[in-house]
């Protein structure tokens, strides 16, 4: 059996890539994709721990499925917002979308 550390390291790498994307990218669509990466990193963690700690239960798998469902819904919502933003501002650059400040 593959040791759990492998999964954890994989998960950490994907999470870091996602976090880098969120912090460094300026395009809203790319940020959204990076967020998805972070979510999937977490899902990997859930499944890994579920298999290693309580193989007889499905809690972790169910959580992963939930994360996927929520992520899908979130993508639908976020893309709609980005679409509206682009329609109004003719840009998807988050640096230029600062109308919510004080």
């Amino acid at each position, binding site marked *: 059996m593959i040791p759990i550390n492998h999964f954890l390291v994989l998960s950490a790498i994907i999470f870091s890539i996602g*976090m880098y994307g*969120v*912090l460094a990218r*300026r395009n*809203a669509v790319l*940020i959204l994709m990076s967020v998805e990466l972070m979510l999937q990193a977490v899902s990997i963690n859930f499944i890994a721990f579920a298999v290693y700690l309580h193989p007889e239960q499905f809690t972790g798998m169910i959580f992963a499925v939930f994360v996927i469902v929520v992520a899908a819904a979130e993508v639908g919502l976020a893309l709609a917002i980005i679409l509206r933003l682009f329609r109004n501002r003719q840009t998807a650059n*988050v*640096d230029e*979308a*600062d*109308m*919510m*400040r*004080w």
Partner: protein
Amino acid sequence: MGMEQAWLIPAIPAAAFVLLLLFGPYIPRRGDWVAILAIGASFVLFFPVLLDLQDAIGSDPEAFQGGGKSWEWISFEGFEIDLGFFVDEITIVMLVVVSFVALLVQIYSVSYMRGDPRYGWYFTVMCLFTASMLTLVLADNLLFMYAAWEGVGFCSFLLIGFWWEKRSAAEAAKKAFVTTRIGDVGFLIGIIMLWDKADTFNIQEIIEFAEGGGYDETYLTVAVLALFAGAVGKSGQFPLHVWLPDAMEGPTPVSALIHAATMVVAGVYMVARTLPLFVVADPIALDIVMAIGLITIMLSATMGLAATDIKRVIAYSTLNSLGLMFVALGSLSVTAAMLYLFVHGFFKAMLFLGAGSVIHATEKQEVSELGGLARKMPITALTFLLGTLAMIGIIPLSGFWAKDEVLVAVEHEQSTAAYAILLSSLFITGLYMTRLYILTFLFEARDKEANHHAHEGGLLMALPLLILAVPTVIAGFVVFDAVGEALGFVGGFGQFVWLEEPHEFEFHTDIAVLSTVLAGSGIVVGWILWQGKATLATRIRDTLSPVAALLSNRYYIDQVYQWAIDNVILGISKIVAWFDRVVVNDTGVDGSAGLTYFAGFGLKFTQTGRLPNYALAIAVGAIVLAVIFIGYEVGVN
């Protein structure tokens, strides 16, 4: 119907109060007949209670412990309060005074208050007062009594300030309320102290607990003196007597009922009910009761000499009488105190109603504007004369018997000094009551115009005066066995109302002669001084002008209080106000609001609205938390 149904007596006026309060304007004649019927019903219900009481006392008065009924009011685990009504001999004496005088005063008021814009409201409040007063009398526990005590105080406030458009009336109402409240705080403290140890509010149980040695002596002394403070406030004793003369701003029937016959004697009644506690406590408690009574007697009698308002003079005589009752209580003679209370209720109410007749007829209150009214108002003049002589204590009027009981008690129990002060006050009482009578009713009218229009106030005003004249003359005879037996208490008043043991009436000829000589000489000297144009009195006043000024300024006690309020209390208030404004408001309330405002002003610049900044903040925050958590875990392990 008997003692168990005694709760009906206050309940009927209370129901009438609710009825008048809600539907008063829709009832014909503004509901005055409802009030009179309700109080009349209370008076009638008094008789079955009296008969039941006499049955219960039976042949063995020493075994009788009082009757009544109580209900559970509050019940928690280990904490119970019962409310109930209690009837014994002291209660019944008080009850007859309250219900009888209240009924007559209500009848009198129909005529006296006619045409007043708040005629209906007057009867509404009078109903509430009567209900509260009867509850106070019948309450079997101190908490219930305290509630009724505040109830009568509130009604007194409303009725003194009945004509509140007049500034002096509004001020007098406020003064009465605040001054009595000072005493009431003491009363409440006393109740709490007694309850704290005995775990009951019931008066009989508290007395049994105290007699069983349940209280520490010092503790009990403080507690009973706190109770006495309540009595001092309510009964207008020195140093809280200042409100009673001012309370004369109210309608005169109110003065007759509340500030002569009933409410002001509530303090005497309360001390009489709790007197066994004073016996158990340190003797200093009774000495203080005695001393306060004596001081009040001397102050009020001398102030009465200089007062110029007819009602105020009677108010001072009330203070004088209340002082006598406390002196009797201080000598442990409940018999004398309750006898004086009993007869005082009748003759003092009659004096006030007579004064009301005079004011109604002439619309003058200053004695310097009255005079010569005896020819115009014979009924008032005659009844007022009886009241005056009863107050002075001339045999065989009721005041004489009661006053002599007090004298006998003091002579047996107290020092010669107290006895001498009491005797000298009799002379002064004779003096100022004679002065009042002469200046009001005899010789030349000083205001011809007012005198010319003066007339009796009609049947409804004359009738209560005449009815009250009967007990004024004969009520004192209850000390005798024969009269007592006719009224149902065998052996006279002393066998009926007593503290330690019932005693038979003894006529002490020496004391009676001495008091009569002193009172009589008061009348004679008063006659010499104030007869005709009162030249002699004027000359004495001019010669002794500092004394006269001292008396007419009421020993400057009011001024001293005013000074104390202006300087001490307002001074402290200013410090408190400063603390409130600067520390509580400016620093505390405004400070925290300002802090939030400035923090918000500073922090709003971090809200850039740019997504990367928020994302960075979240990431950094998560990392910082993770580092702290890991550091903590490492540290623990």
